[in-house]
């Protein structure tokens, strides 16, 4: 077993170099979470904001609602539906970006080195365009009077336009399109380092193509797949814009629900509690995912 180098002692100069990063982490990440945590146990103010009375009602309201007439507590079906939709769509987005992204990454990684940059640039290109424009482009494709429906109508494949816009399908398409590069790039990065003589060794040892993919290539690029899945799953789970535009306010996701609390509904404490719930879902999902995906991985000596 190789001995690990000891972490260098933190002296004055090093501490000074660390300060900007620590400041950003403290002010940009830690502090807002603490503020949100504080808000989540206060009562909503009359015109937004919070009034400084401690109440845990908001946390209850995340999953339950009080019936106006009977004062009975029931499960908040609307919230649960939104939780479920968010998790489901985020999961499906991750799956779809993998299904589309893996072959793309494989293709790029197997090109001659001087051509790979061009292909990578094509993957990156959409990033240079404004997010909203890309979503509206998807909208043009799938709306009732859009390109796909018109095409299908003109060749007589369908009688009436298919309602795609403002459905979960629309949100899924939008998010898959949007987050595809986030899956392709990490998979490409680990595949580029993949030694293709390993694949040859697989073929040589009587493994046909699919077995080689499953037994040799996938295990070797697993870190890239894990990274890509995390990069896609987290923003999909908290998505706001795609669900707003392509879901048409009907297919709400967690992000929209939180947005509404801070906006129209002026219930900041509930919004804060929902935000922390989202954070918790992400954390739990990531722990489960990394544990399962990395289960066979032994600690390296």
């Amino acid at each position, binding site marked *: 077993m190789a001995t690990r180098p000891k972490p260098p002692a933190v002296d004055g100069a090093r501490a000074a170099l660390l300060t900007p990063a620590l400041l950003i982490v403290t002010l940009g990440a830690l502090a807002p979470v603490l503020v949100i945590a504080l808000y989540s146990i206060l009562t909503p103010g009359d015109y937004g904001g919070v009034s400084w009375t401690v109440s845990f009602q908001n946390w209850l309201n995340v999953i339950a609602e009080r019936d106006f007439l009977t004062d009975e507590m029931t499960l908040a079906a609307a919230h649960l539906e939104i939780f479920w939709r968010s998790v489901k769509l985020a999961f499906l987005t991750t799956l779809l970006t993998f299904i589309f992204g893996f072959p793309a990454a494989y293709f790029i990684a197997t090109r001659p080195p001087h051509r790979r940059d061009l292909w990578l640039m094509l993957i990156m290109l959409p990033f240079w365009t404004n997010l909203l424009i890309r979503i509206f482009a998807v909208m043009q494709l799938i709306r009732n009077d859009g390109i796909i429906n018109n095409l299908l109508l003109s060749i007589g494949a369908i009688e009436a336009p298919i309602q795609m816009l403002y459905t979960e399908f629309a949100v899924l398409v939008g998010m898959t399109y949007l987050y595809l590069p986030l899956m392709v790039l990490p998979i490409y990065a680990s595949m580029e380092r993949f030694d293709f*003589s390993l694949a040859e060794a*697989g073929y040589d*040892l009587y493994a046909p193509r699919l077995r080689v993919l499953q037994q040799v290539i996938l295990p*070797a690029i697993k870190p890239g797949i894990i990274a890509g899945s995390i990069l896609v799953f987290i923003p999909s789970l908290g998505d706001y814009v795609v669900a707003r535009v392509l879901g048409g306010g009907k297919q709400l996701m967690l992000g929209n629900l939180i947005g509404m609390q801070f906006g129209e509904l002026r219930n900041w404490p509930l919004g804060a509690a929902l935000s922390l719930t989202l954070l918790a879902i992400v954390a739990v999902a990531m722990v489960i995912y990394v544990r399962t995906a990395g289960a066979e991985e032994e600690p390296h*000596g």
Partner: protein
Amino acid sequence: MIEIDNLTKTYGAGPQAYQALRGVTATVRANEFFTLLGPSGCGKTTLLRMIAGFETPTSGKLLLDGQDVSASPPYRRPVNTVFQSYALFPHMTCAENIGFGLKMLGKPKAEITRTVGEMLDLVQMTPMANRRPSQLSGGQQQRIALARALAPKPKVLLLDEPLSALDYKLRKDMQIELKRIQKDTGITFVFVTHDQEEALTMSDRIAIMNAGTIRQIGSPRDIYDQPAERFVADFIGETNFLTVGLLGVAGQTARVALPSGRELDLRAPGELPKGPQVTMAIRPEHLELVAADAGQLSGRLSNIVYFGTDTHFHVDLGEGGALVVRSQNKPDQMPRLTAGEAVGISVLPGTGQVLRD
């Protein structure tokens, strides 16, 4: 047995086309240690990869035990490869690496376990069974790669410069080890190397390749003592080339006139070039320094290079060119010679060869 029948391989097309193999024909016998030797870019690795199935021939045929396998993919050929980079699966233990081929062949678990045990034993790596390749040294990885390729009991084992990454001492050990394993298993080995010493010490037969063709096939002794042409003679060991006059040929013997005017009988296998002048190849250790007026050749010592085990004497033959004479250093050293002295050179009987080019 592998029959290689007029194989060619062309990469690209048009003016940029590159011919890696230009019609290679050879037969590798069963159970032999066959070496493909040549400088880099001679096509030896292409030929090896073609036998493995990683490259498809542009034309020609490849027969394995009489069956045409030219078009079958690597996973259908009873041929396994030891890769230059070892290509061990990093996410598997040594035992899993060795068992991989058997698992893919669908062998029962008990058989896999038993064979993996035997293979670990064969390469003396049993204590490392549960280590990952990354935890092994280069030499150990080499052994596991060898065991992995041997485990499915292939008809032919291909080795692509497997020792090139090892240091000198380890390489020597592995050469002996490989030879032992080849004898013990009785599997046909096709070994690719650019190291002539490795080829000479390990092989039953060697094929010397250059520019996509096989120049000569023979036992190490044949190749060394009777190189057929200038490239082979030059590539293997050190050789003196002398232009001599061809006086006549009788069977496998040619009578030539040396630059000194003396006549000499030399081996002359195969065709000889037409014309009065031919090239003679003679190894430095097949020459002997004698007194200035004795011997078949005479010249002047231009340089003496001491090598410890032996000494190289560079002799200037005047118009006839130059020669190197190697003599082993013995305690009863011949009288000390100095550069500039006139010496005679005697050709040991039965040595020297007329080349076909």
